């Protein structure tokens, strides 16, 4: 009673230091209950049996939260299902006989390591530049001494939901990282705890982003691809804070 299908996969294969190319693999007997990555597990198991090195792709949690999985499926970052990371995509979205093209994230700042695995450490560089609130262990006062309006906490949480997958960069025609950076910046800028370092943070993170990534020309593809549906509003808020960070006299910034 279980539906199985036969698929044809066109997969990007690339050895370190060499040019890559597409390779075609048949994938018969795929159950509709499998996840997309389990389908690839099955293909890999067959490749190993044949003596072909398996396709390298990355994943860890397989429940849409760690941000490790990253496949470009038929030209869409994380595939066809909205608000869904690759690992949460299931094969019942596909039909018998389908052809599927699988590529790595493509962006100059995400160099390919091997096959479908890329290096996304540029995202960490942005975080390192200022994505924190200075609160050394032991220095904190009682948590309820700083009330946070529920709306502010909710909105900070909306931004903080970003899983750092980089789909926004992969989907962007300019390989810009505005959506990721704005999520990280605004998570902290929206909270009372984040105010003291707000201008410095924004300036440092935006400028580090610009060192690595392209410029945003408001296509909005990032939001379409984002598995957590991070809002474009955060980009607007970050841009505003960035402009202000340039004119703000920080000696007066205690007044807000």
């Amino acid at each position, binding site marked *: *009673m*279980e539906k199985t299908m036969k698929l044809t996969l066109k997969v990007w294969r690339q*050895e*370190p230091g060499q040019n890559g190319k597409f390779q075609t693999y048949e994938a018969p007997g795929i*159950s*509709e*209950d*499998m*996840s997309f990555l*389990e389908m690839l*597990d099955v293909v*890999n*198991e067959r490749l*190993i049996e044949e*003596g072909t*090195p*398996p396709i390298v792709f*990355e*994943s*860890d*949690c*397989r*429940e849409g*939260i*760690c941000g490790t999985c990253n496949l470009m499926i038929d030209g869409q970052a994380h595939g066809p299902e909205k608000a869904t990371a690759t690992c*949460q995509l*299931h094969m019942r979205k596909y039909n018998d006989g389908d052809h599927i093209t699988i590529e790595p994230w493509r962006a100059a700042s995400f160099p390919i390591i*091997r096959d479908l*695995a890329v*290096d*996304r450490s540029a995202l*960490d560089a942005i*975080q*390192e*530049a200022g*994505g*924190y*609130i200075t609160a*050394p*262990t*032991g*220095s*904190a*006062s*009682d*948590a*309820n001494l700083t*009330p*946070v*309006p*529920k709306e502010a906490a909710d909105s900070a*949480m909306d931004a*903080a*939901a970003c*899983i*750092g997958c980089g789909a926004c960069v992969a989907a962007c025609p300019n390989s810009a990282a505005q959506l990721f950076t704005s999520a990280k910046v605004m*998570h*902290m800028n929206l*909270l009372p*705890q984040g105010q003291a370092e707000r201008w410095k943070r924004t300036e440092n993170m935006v400028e580090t982003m610009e060192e690595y990534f392209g410029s945003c020309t408001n296509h909005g593809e990032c939001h379409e691809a984002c598995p957590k549906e991070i809002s474009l509003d955060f980009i607007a808020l970050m841009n505003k804070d960035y402009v202000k960070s340039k004119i703000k006299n920080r000696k007066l910034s205690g007044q807000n």
Partner: protein
Amino acid sequence: MSGYSDVLDSKVPEGPIAEKWTNHKFNMKLVNPANKRKFEVIVVGTGLAGASAAATMGELGYKVKAFTFHDSPRRAHSIAAQGGINGAKNYQNDGDSVHRLFYDTVKGGDYRSREANVHRLAEVSVDIIDQAAAQGVPFAREYGGLLANRSFGGAQVSRTFYARGQTGQQLLLGAYSALMRQVNEGGVELYNRQEMLELVTKDGEACGIVCRDVITGEISSHTAHAVVLATGGYGNVYYLSTNAMMCNVTAAWRAHRKGAMFANPCYTQIHPTCIPSSDPFQSKLTLMSESLRNDGRIWVPDKFDEARSASDIPEAERDYYLERKYPAFGNLVPRDVASRNAKTVVDAGKGVGPLKNGVYLDFAEAIARDGEDTVRAKYGNLFDMYERITGENPYKQPMRIYPATHYTMGGLWVDYHLMTTVPGCYAIGEANFSDHGANRLGASALMQGLADGYFVLPYTIGDQLAGKLGSDPVPADDPVFKEAIADVNDRTNKWLAVKGTKSVDHYHRELGKLVWDYIGMERNKNGLEKAISEITSLEEEFEKNVRVLGSADTLNQSLEKVGRVSDFFGLAKLKARDALVREESAGGHFREEHQTEEGEAQRDDENFKHVTAWDWNGEGEAQTEHREELVFNEVPLTQRSYK
């Protein structure tokens, strides 16, 4: 029994329980700020425990090197925790206190944890919440702006703090941001994509690690005055679990082989509400939050091999077995009780779903009572997730659930300082055995990982380091490092040379089946003995017939996995032995031979009120059993009952 207990010194300080930690902090040796720079500390693992420890020690001035095999600390498995974190703040004024959290945790652990450690955990739980809030963790708030709480895992007070269904993610982002601040300021050097493959010791003391760069395959030595393992849990020894795919036991196991005793591997938490497996290639199981049991009713059909769909089965032909057997707690019995009962009905042939491997969790009554919108507001996310995975709509038909491996209470034995039996080697977070006894309560793992990392280890490590002032770390060209590198290279070459016929995953799956069948929710002597012999023969086949393609000098996922699975084999055998010698039932360890007349777990406090810790004796030799007797001065021992 005294023959066992003298080796393990828990170093629990003297004095009344509520003052032990405070007094001990005063009594420990300190390293003065200028001298901290002279000490190098390695932290392996950058999940909640490792990131918080590395960041805090960096802030204090130690020279910290942090390692993870992930591409970024923010990917650690801690990110997946959903429900929340406990903290004895008593913000709700409902009678919570440090003492109550301590009491609940000792009792919840079925009286198999160390009172002094648990009390300290409860004490620092309040500081964790302050710390996280100050870092910008967007905890849920009430309209007035104060922190919101919920009750969790059967606790009678509301002490759980949460950030939507993503508490682990937000706490990890907090610890990660503190870590990145230290990386930026030079207090911590971060080594991503480095897998630790050996703990290096000299004259019995930890002096460094050997790692493999997973991208280039390069093997390197790293030296330090102390090594901290924060490498998480090993639930994936069951192959299928709620853990992330890469969780493994290698770091802890390598330390075990260098003399760190491994404690209580038989205690595993099996979570009752997970989505059942749907095909033989299932790669992991997804947890559905425990909170669903507040409104969902669990049942199976009365008839064996029922073919009708749920909606066609009349009320009179359904068995709401938890409500029937446990009228007082009903569907809210603790995790282990709910899990075992699901297994019983499924094994009896009453399972539901295409593979007959689940039980129903039915929301029809809640929807009829409160309306679909109310149910959606409470559980919408979870229902969507369920539908995405199964293709079934839980508003229209009951969910199907089944227990899955979730958390490992056992781990490296540590003393009150969180130091293993290898001097200079520490274990924190899920990797150690410390605070949860035989069973962990919901929302307590995040608490323990952060307690260890932010508030305990950064103090206790100083006591040991103070004695080493003026000594340099063992240099990387010392023969002990050369030997460790040679060992790693030999193993790699061995795996590549097997050139067998079956994939690593094949053997991992087969191992998982044995561990699940014999060392899963219910164990018995016969089964455990069988487990040991069957695991041993599977391991022999694995070593002769596994196929690892490709080479060592590049990203090679099969090569990474083969080492981990090999260590899982060793662990699985020890787990079976540990389960065999523990002739009682306690928490996550249920021995069929030891149950009450009603089929509940029967502890044996007279003979088993101890921690079992196993000492490595070399390849091919059985480990030696040691015991740490547990003392219960504060919490009286009672038998659990949920009738």
